[in-house]
């Protein structure tokens, strides 16, 4: 079991190492980590910081996918959460008051939870296919975010709020710490309790789980709520980092990157098993991909092609059939013929 896990994660790790090696060779000072004003600086730290929202969203997405669902609304929830926080902070008489910012953050997360509950209700109670159920919020959520900000980009000047996305504690970026804490809590709850097993059983077969006495419906609602909460926190990090709320661009297309991260990490889209470590690795890989492409000197217009090539190579490397085909070249041909899939 452990060996299988290792081999599944081996390819993303190998790809990450290759990318970092490329960065090391082609760009000077890529790994220069220096301490400035008691903070860590350097490209690897930037990669971690850039990956924090994606890691968070991907954690929630992993849980949703483990039950056989999918959540397309995460990008919109990010936009709504950022918009909500910035709206409240913008109305504060003193934008630097910690209490006011705390209320704004809590309100934003509470709103995200409500949105998650909505998704869960559509999927678990009304029985709508997840991809369509969350598509509704994906479309309407951006409208909601713009409604909250009245179609404007709200700019805030709040130093406590800025801490969430761009601050440092003990020299480490706060956003990375938040992602790490959420990851740790999720891992503990799913792997140190029976929760993970129950989620996987719901993903394997909701009907069988229900017959076995598992409240499948409750778990389904729960994963969408958790996913929305993660997206909400990611939205706060994003909007805090740029000190503004942008209903159009916040979390744009992040759902696809998150799903990609989850699948690279070895979670099957059909549900029934999941790997949080794999997801984190996948998210880091995607964040590294974007940053490395820039520092290696690939022009911005070619970044997408680069990404496509990396994804294809990685998927092929993870495919057992592809590896078998490469390997088979050294064996006699008749044997190879017999095993060619129909």
């Amino acid at each position, binding site marked *: 079991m452990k060996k299988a896990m290792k081999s599944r994660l081996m390819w993303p790790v190998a790809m990450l190492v290759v990318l970092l090696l490329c960065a090391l060779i082609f760009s000077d000072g890529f790994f220069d980590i220096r301490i400035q004003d008691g903070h860590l600086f350097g490209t690897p730290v930037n990669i971690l910081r850039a990956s924090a929202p994606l890691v968070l969203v991907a954690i929630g997405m992993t849980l949703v996918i483990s039950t056989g669902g999918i959540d397309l609304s995460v990008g919109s929830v990010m936009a709504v959460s950022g918009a909500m926080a910035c709206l409240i902070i913008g109305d504060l008489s003193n934008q630097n008051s910690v209490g006011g910012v705390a209320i704004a953050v809590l309100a934003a997360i509470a709103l995200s939870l409500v949105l998650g509950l909505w998704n869960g209700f559509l999927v678990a109670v009304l029985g709508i296919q997840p991809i369509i159920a969350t598509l509704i919020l994906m479309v309407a959520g951006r*409208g909601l975010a713009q409604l909250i900000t009245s179609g404007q980009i709200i700019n805030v000047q709040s130093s406590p709020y800025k801490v969430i996305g761009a601050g440092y504690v003990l020299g480490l970026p706060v956003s990375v710490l938040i992602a790490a804490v959420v990851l740790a809590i999720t891992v503990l709850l799913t792997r140190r309790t029976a929760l993970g097993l129950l989620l996987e059983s719901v993903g394997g077969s909701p009907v069988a789980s229900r017959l076995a006495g598992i409240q499948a419906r409750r778990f389904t609602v729960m994963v969408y709520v958790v996913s929305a909460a993660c997206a909400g926190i990611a939205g706060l990090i994003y909007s805090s980092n740029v000190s503004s709320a942008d209903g159009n661009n916040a979390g744009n297309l992040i759902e696809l990157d998150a799903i990609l991260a989850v699948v690279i990490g070895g979670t099957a889209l059909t*549900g029934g098993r999941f790997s949080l470590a794999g997801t984190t690795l996948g998210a880091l890989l995607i964040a590294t991909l974007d940053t490395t492409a820039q520092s290696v000197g690939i022009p911005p217009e070619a970044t997408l092609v680069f990404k496509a090539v990396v*994804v294809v190579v990685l998927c092929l490397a993870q495919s057992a059939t592809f590896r078998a085909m490469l390997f088979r070249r050294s064996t006699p041909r008749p044997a190879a013929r017999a095993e060619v899939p129909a």
Partner: protein
Amino acid sequence: MIDVSTTPATNKSGPASRRRTYRPNAQYIPVLATLSLLIVMYTFGAVSYENFTHPSVILNLFTNNAFLLVVAVGMTFVILTGGIDLSVGAVIAMTSTVAATLLQAGWPAGVVIPVVLLIGGVLGLGMGAVIHFFKVEPFIATLAGMFLARGIALLINQNSIPITNEFWTSIAETRIVFEPGVYISGMALVALAVVAVAAVVLAWTKFGRNVYAIGGNADSALLMGLPVGRTRIGVYTLSGFCAALGGLIYSITTTSGYAGHGTGTELDAIAAVVIGGVLLTGGSGYVLGTVLGVLVLGLINTIVNFASLNSWWARMAIGVLLFAFIVLQRLVTRKAK
């Protein structure tokens, strides 16, 4: 691919009787539900807004959504086999950019059109091969295809390229005029022709039967000796081809090629297919349902346009209408069963 089914395997893939056109009535329920709700929605629009009953409203649905209709038809085949194709929107961007660039370089339209359709088909073929031979999840393989296609479009040109080719501008203006202001565009007719061909292929050919069989249960289909690989690669090729055709239609109606064209079209197409009653797990659904799904999305947009809301209320309204439609459809089909 997906053999973990939550419901016991019903007779999805075809009738037991020898008459190929016969199907149990229950199979039509999702399509009929969509149709009746579409009528309800149209009546709602007609009652609420002036001029909504003008015939041009319905004809414009086809004219404005011609590209989506073609793309969604290709998507129907893919989803019927239990797969998904996320690359279609990006293929629209790529084909419109390639077509515009080639036309600008002075290539004749008669060469550009086949070349572009071929590119779309080849990309689909590649994705289908990766999915079938290397057992990569369709979602991920086509996501990579999406990155690739849009990346190529961006690589070619990041700006919108105008198309001044005479052939292009002349077909853009080809239309059948019933009376002044009431017309159907040539592109809509192309889309309807694609629908007709697809419906025939799906209902009365071996390929169509194989598509349903694979969607029902790929392993059984393989054991029955059906050409699973050929069919599966075929549907992705077909979807790539349809997306390229959709891209051509898009470039004709907008007379431009741009790497930003078709953003989000993949989700519109998937939504249209699912609204039309096709199951995402595959094996059940009709092309006619997809047509109705496209009309539902088009009608939602039309109603929102008639209500003349600003952009964010419009988005909310689209979400709310989509929600209302899906919940009603769910209730209708549940009751009927």
